[in-house]
């Protein structure tokens, strides 16, 4: 567990996690440790189980065995909203927004729990200054202020991806997990999204799945390589670049 800041538990710690669908083992003996404040990239071929790993950590699905810890606390078995309330927020590879609601409402809903308004039915949602400010700030951050009244379902693809990031970071979670945030974006859009991610996750722990190697090596402090549901290597970009197993299993075919 090399990445751990001394004296502090790792932000995320996955220990010996297995996941089977029926009798197919999709995740096998998964071990992963992400230190506080670290930017951690998970790479691996399609179908390796990266999204499944996200689902396991965020509580979307339950591990068949093994445990997941967040800031040292056991979270495997908890509901997704319980995990979210403990400060972990994730995005989805396939855009997953509130289609009939406006961009503004999408982001605002994601702000509400963290600002303590929860299930309140006695407050006017429009007159909560801290909610309004934070929502406006995030819309500004993701460059969607001019689209604030448009239903999310009518945004362009790239705009929806940006909204996806906005919803994910809106709660102010300290651990942010982004699943292929730039998938399907053009070069220019990718650059913009990456600088956005860099800025918005300043001082937070970031776990990101990304296919674009230049993005990965530019952004990540550490990288884990997932192949067939198992992490074959984990280390700094330099270590990963040099790792023969990685070269063979993954970079060998993908490197341009």
């Amino acid at each position, binding site marked *: 567990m090399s990445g751990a800041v001394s004296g502090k538990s790792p932000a995320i710690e996955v220990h010996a996690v297995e996941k089977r669908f029926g009798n197919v083992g999709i995740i096998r003996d998964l071990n992963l440790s992400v230190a506080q404040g670290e930017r951690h990239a998970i790479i691996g071929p399609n179908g390796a189980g990266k999204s499944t790993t996200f689902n396991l950590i*965020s*509580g*979307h699905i339950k591990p068949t065995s093994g445990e997941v810890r967040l800031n040292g606390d056991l979270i495997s078995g908890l*509901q*997704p*909203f319980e995990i*979210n*309330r403990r400060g972990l*927020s*994730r995005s*989805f590879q396939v855009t*997953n*927004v*509130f*289609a*009939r*609601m*406006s961009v*503004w*409402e999408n982001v*605002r*809903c*994601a702000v*509400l*729990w*963290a600002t303590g*308004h*929860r*299930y*309140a*039915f*006695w*407050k*006017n*949602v*429009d007159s*909560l200054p801290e909610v*309004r400010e934070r929502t406006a700030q995030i819309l500004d951050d993701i460059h969607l202020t001019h689209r604030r*009244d*448009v*239903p999310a*379902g*009518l945004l362009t693809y790239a705009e929806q991806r940006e909204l996806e990031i906005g*919803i*994910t970071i*809106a*709660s102010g979670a300290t651990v942010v997990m982004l699943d292929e945030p730039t998938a399907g974006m053009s070069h220019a859009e990718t650059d913009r999204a990456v600088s956005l991610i860099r800025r918005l996750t300043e001082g937070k722990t970031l776990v990101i799945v990304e296919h674009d190697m230049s993005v990965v090596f530019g952004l990540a402090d550490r990288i884990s390589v997932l192949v067939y549901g198992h992490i074959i290597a984990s280390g700094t970009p330099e270590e990963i670049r040099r790792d023969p197993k990685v070269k063979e299993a993954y970079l060998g075919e993908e490197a341009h």
Partner: protein
Amino acid sequence: MTAATTSSVTAKPAGENLRFYGIWLIGIAALIVLPQVFSSGGSLTSFSLIGIAIVFALSYNILLGQTGLLSFGHAVHYGLGGFAACHMMNAVVSRGWPIPLPFIPLFGGIGGLVFAMIIGWVMTKRAGTVFAMISLGIGELVASSSLILRSVFGGESGITTDRTALPKMLGWSFGPQLQVYYLISFWLVLSAIAMYALTRTPLGRISNAVRDNPERVQFIGYDPHVVRYLAYCFAGFFAGVAGGLTAINFEIANSALLGAIQSGLVLFSTFIGGTAFFFGPILGAILVTYLQLGLTNLTTAWQLYFGIIFIGIVMYAPGGIAGLLMMHRPLIRAGTLWTVIPSYLVAIVPTVALACGVILTIETVARYSGGDPINLFGIPFNPTSPMTWLTAAVLVVGGAFVARLTWRRIAEAWDRAATVARDRGYLA
């Protein structure tokens, strides 16, 4: 289509604020003036029923439109509210409690709420189709149980009460229908404001999110089950208020209030009116209640007309009447509405012909064995005469054929107008 979804206006400018309160004030003024203009006993009765139906439909839309829960058993809360109100009224009279009539609907609401709190947690575990089926089952359960628990529900005949026996308030005895009308209007305004306010709270907005995407809601900290449950409780409360008003209006509560027919009617009203806008169910409740009152005297097949209108709305205008109206807003703003009006005018004749053909067909079948003559807008038809059948067939087939062409023209004109509106930035 898209206009139906841009309902989010935040931090409104002063002008919009004025218009917003203006609409509410006009509504309230209309409720006050209405009985002065139409003062016959019949219209007072109708207005009272419509007012109750509006509260009921708005409560239903907390589920369907706001939270995405399709219930086939909403009348359970309506009926239980009615029974709670009746029992409360009788208790007030027999115990001599100092509670005047205007407070009774609150107890109806509590009746609906308590049952929602008990049964809702189990029901809202699941959403979608399963919730719909469960609500149907619970509806049947309660309706059948009400016949068994005779001491509470009074069996087939129900529970009667006397609203005038309660303590007077401000000198009102609530004997005359006019006073009951104002009581209903008062609760209508109160409930409508409360339910509108609910849509603008954190819970209201999260309900929308649960409607759109219950999975994602879990990843922004919310438990969709809790959200659905709370929404269900609110819907149960306001349905109970409507039931309480019914109990006051008729001075009786019986098991028909709880039944599948009431549940179906409120679904029809809400959906036909339109679920995507707050005022949709209001329109729907007015229309459905009005049709129900008007059609029952004219035809035995009135329920079939509801069914057909409902199917038509589901297939061709899932936004309901409100959705159809609000579609035009961006066009009005962009100033392109006039380009579609001519195609509407052209479509009127064949569409009306088609409708007449359908009506004639239905009435022919309905009256074939009885032989009662049909009176279609003053023109008499004999249901056993082949001439009638021929007329009906020509109207249906010819009307449908021509109407389809004109509808296509509407769609084309509409697309052109919408494109312009989009270019001018009034439509996303």
